[in-house]
């Protein structure tokens, strides 16, 4: 007997993804207008980072930056400082980014 079906079954169980019914979505994350507002806020942060990247990199390379909407709200030098600050940022829609030197490639 082939072992393939049981392995396939195991994979399905480990990575089970269930589509949420539309009527349940509003209950769990709020109205589409609310969700869209939060997502747009994050997109705004990414656009700010993209548009100001060269200037930010020049000033803050090898540091973590915290962006809220289209505003830079914090710069942290060390993991310890960043972690201290992250607790205060809980429940805020902020964008965290590490400004690595361009030569410092990250392979995931």
């Amino acid at each position, binding site marked *: 007997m082939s072992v393939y079906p049981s392995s396939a079954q195991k994979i399905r169980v*480990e*990575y*089970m*993804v*269930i*589509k*949420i019914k*539309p009527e349940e*979505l*509003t209950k*769990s*994350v*709020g109205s*589409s*207008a609310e*969700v*869209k507002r*939060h*997502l747009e*806020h*994050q*997109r705004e942060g*990414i*656009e700010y*980072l*993209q548009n100001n*990247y*060269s200037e930010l*990199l*020049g000033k803050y390379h090898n540091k*973590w930056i915290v962006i809220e909407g289209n505003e830079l709200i914090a710069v942290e030098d*060390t*993991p*310890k400082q*960043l*972690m201290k600050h*992250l*607790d205060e*940022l*809980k*429940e805020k*829609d*902020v*964008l*965290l980014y*590490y400004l*690595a030197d*361009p030569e410092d*490639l*990250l*392979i*995931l």
Partner: protein
Amino acid sequence: MIRGILFEPLDSQGKPVGVATPYMVATLNIPRLHISSSLPFLVDTGADATILHLRDALQIIGLRDLSMLKETQQLKGIGGSAEYSIVPAEIVFCHDDNSLEGFQFDLRVAKPAKSWWKPRQSNIQALQLRLPSLLGRDILSEFCLVIDYHRRQLFLDHP
């Protein structure tokens, strides 16, 4: 259609810095911890599972709640293996027509490395805090994923 962002920063001469990075912005909901937050995920077709990496985990969950997450799993990456907690979560995307689409799934949440709290471990901490959260194939496989570097477009859709 759910639009993503091909993040392509420019240097002071107006030239692209590296190759554009594909991000999808989504709302992540963790009912058990009463957390709902929107954040960018790096689109990673090389990742089996969707992952909340430490930088984002510390910000939206916090160190205290993060250390209380028990069910863990070792996941392997290019840099070695690391410990992740498995947490039931929901991920929600917004389509162009403002309709929402969401999924329940098992989110993998990065835990601080075992050596995290030892003295002089700032290199390990710094590396873990650099990693973006990943949108893995568990969620991506629900969609048709288009990354068109030529037209600077990234989106998820249904055929």
